[in-house]
């Protein structure tokens, strides 16, 4: 058992008092940058790199990766409590996390998120330790047609089952895709839908849209209902932890599914955010309590969070094995590796086993330390919610503005945020579903690219999307889930017709 020997060695390195302390500091800092919108693991790692020059490389990478683990944990806190995601991959959790907090189950939602992160991370860590080559090979078999099929499946999971008016859902989804297409088309280099307006050339960023649609839109709705945040009291008790553990056992399939989706998507650059949406869609599609999703179902918190952490963890794998970073933060850590004079790639395992295995072991220790840290932090964050509304509200707007600006350092984004806030308010009242629209905005570019690449591969034939063995079953599943409302409607009618026939 070569791997266990290596892991044992790594654990011995990662658990020396100095490295543990470094890891703890990294995680605390990571939680803080994760909570603040506009600041993320990548910024956090970037400012710490100069500090790492005075450390041994192993301690340095533990510091940076721990910060990354902390940021993964921390991103969901503001999503759940304020409807404002602290990190892109914490967007999908607002669909059910915030309604839970509104129902007065904020503490439970936070705990659920943390445990889901823990389990997702555990899957990632197991993979990183034992199955790296197999998974890497499997994910390489996913070409553009297969990736596009997965996206179709995700969409049908989210669209086919939700929304009161299917046509409004269709319009909102197309609007999301259209917004993703605004700006320069990277294939042909043409400007699309800019109508000669310079501000439109940069396109729309989905983070700005989320902050507006959900964060500000929610505030406007709250104001309309009277000047208070109703029921958003988040106390964290040991009872919550017990209940959440019970729910983990009950929904173990959802948690495992989320983790697997995350781990697999994490290989692709920028995979954590789509992974969290996909996991949410699949959880909803596969659940027996579909109508509870979006209203504060705990499985709607488990799935995206497990996926986010799974993806974040597996993003490190292509970085150390191939030198390809799977996420922006992994890219900064990769930069650090180069500065410390280490060349990522297969040789790193041979040349510097203590470094590689120290890093891998730190994903294990980081998971446990991270869970303890966020559980300890949570009551402090929850206490913020007890502040009076007239104090909390303007602060939230200010933080939203900073977050929107920091995405691209563009003032126009802050204006977009306000406009999206008003759109979000109107859409919510008129029952347009915003989740599919957001997903379209997030996946828009990727979906269009894979679609076009596939058609180029097949020279225009749509049959490429029905190619066995991977794309075909995915597409069939997508079609069935997408048409499910129709199928169940027909079935119900046939049943009533049968009953009527039996009576007659």
């Amino acid at each position: 058992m070569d791997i266990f020997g290596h892991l044992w060695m790594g654990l011995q390195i990662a658990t020396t008092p100095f490295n543990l302390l470094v890891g703890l500091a990294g995680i605390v800092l990571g939680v803080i940058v994760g909570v603040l919108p506009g600041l993320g693991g990548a910024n956090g790692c970037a400012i710490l790199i100069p500090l790492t020059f005075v450390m041994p490389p192993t301690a340095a990478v533990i510091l940076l990766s721990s910060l990354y683990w902390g940021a993964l944990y921390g991103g969901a806190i503001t999503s759940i409590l304020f409807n404002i995601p602290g990190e892109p991959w914490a967007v999908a959790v607002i669909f059910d996390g915030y309604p839970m907090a509104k129902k007065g189950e904020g503490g439970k939602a936070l705990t659920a998120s943390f445990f889901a992160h823990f389990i997702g991370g555990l899957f990632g860590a197991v993979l990183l330790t034992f199955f790296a080559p197999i998974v890497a090979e499997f994910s390489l078999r996913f070409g553009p047609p297969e990736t596009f099929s997965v996206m179709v499946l995700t969409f049908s999971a989210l669209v086919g089952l939700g929304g009161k008016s299917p046509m409004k859902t269709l319009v909102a989804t197309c609007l999301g895709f259209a917004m993703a297409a605004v700006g320069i088309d990277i294939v042909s280099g043409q400007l699309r839908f800019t109508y000669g307006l310079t501000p439109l050339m940069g396109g729309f960023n989905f983070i700005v849209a989320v902050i507006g649609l959900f964060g500000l839109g929610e505030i406007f709705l709250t104001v309309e209902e009277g000047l208070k945040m109703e029921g958003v009291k988040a106390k964290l008790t040991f009872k919550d932890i017990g209940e959440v553990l019970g729910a983990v056992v009950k929904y173990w399939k959802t948690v495992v599914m989320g983790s697997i989706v995350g781990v697999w998507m994490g290989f692709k650059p920028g995979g954590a955010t789509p992974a969290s949406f996909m996991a949410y869609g699949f959880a909803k599609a596969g659940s027996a309590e579909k109508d509870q999703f979006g209203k504060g179902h705990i499985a709607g918190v488990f799935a995206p969070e497990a996926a986010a952490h799974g993806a974040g963890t597996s993003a490190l794998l292509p970085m150390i094995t191939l030198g390809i970073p799977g996420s922006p933060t992994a890219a900064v850590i990769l930069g650090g590796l180069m500065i410390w004079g280490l060349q990522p790639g297969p040789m790193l395992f041979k040349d510097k086993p203590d470094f590689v295995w120290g890093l891998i072991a730190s994903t294990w220790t980081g998971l446990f330390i991270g869970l303890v840290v966020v559980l300890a932090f949570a009551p402090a964050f929850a206490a913020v919610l007890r502040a009076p509304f007239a104090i909390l509200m303007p602060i939230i707007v200010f933080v939203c503005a900073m977050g929107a600006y920091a995405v691209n350092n563009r003032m126009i984004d802050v204006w977009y945020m306000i406009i999206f806030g008003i759109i979000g308010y109107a859409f919510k009242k008129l029952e347009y579903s915003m989740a599919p629209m957001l997903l379209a905005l997030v996946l828009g570019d990727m979906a269009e690219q894979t679609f076009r690449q596939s058609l180029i591969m097949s020279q225009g034939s749509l049959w490429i999307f029905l190619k066995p063995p991977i794309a075909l079953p995915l597409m069939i599943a997508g079609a069935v889930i997408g048409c499910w409302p129709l199928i169940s409607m027909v079935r119900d009618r046939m049943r009533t017709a049968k009953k009527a026939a039996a009576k007659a």
Partner: protein
Amino acid sequence: MRKADIVTAVVLLGIGILLDIDSLRLGVGWGMEGPQAGFWPMIMGVGMTIGGVIVLMGAIRRKGVSRKTDPFIPREAIKPVLQCVIPAALMVLFTEYIGLYLAAGIYLAVYMRWIGKHSWVTVLILSITIPAASYYVFDKVFLIPMPQGSLMGWLPF
């Protein structure tokens, strides 16, 4: 509610038609590098146009939310909602000229005092420390510059 539903549907339908027109300009056929730039957006534009027409018809025939007779914004809620939207928009406008931190400080102070009726001590402490702390974290520690404003070039921040 019905009026708002109709207006929104018309706006979305309009966006759909705009998309269709621009997609046609970009080309929806098969070009040098596979499907042309307008191909994918065209699908979305057509989807929006068809969906928009159906939603509009539904709204005119009083289906879904249009069945409700209550106004889009309840009369008594108009004031608080505007009190929330306008200061936020003003803060963004001021940010263009005096920078985010100063604008935010004024915004926090005005809102807390005017709407929240909190004591001057609370208002002053919060509206000074919060932007100052954010300035320290974002501009100083993480080197993420926030908008400075066109009139404030002479200040060190």
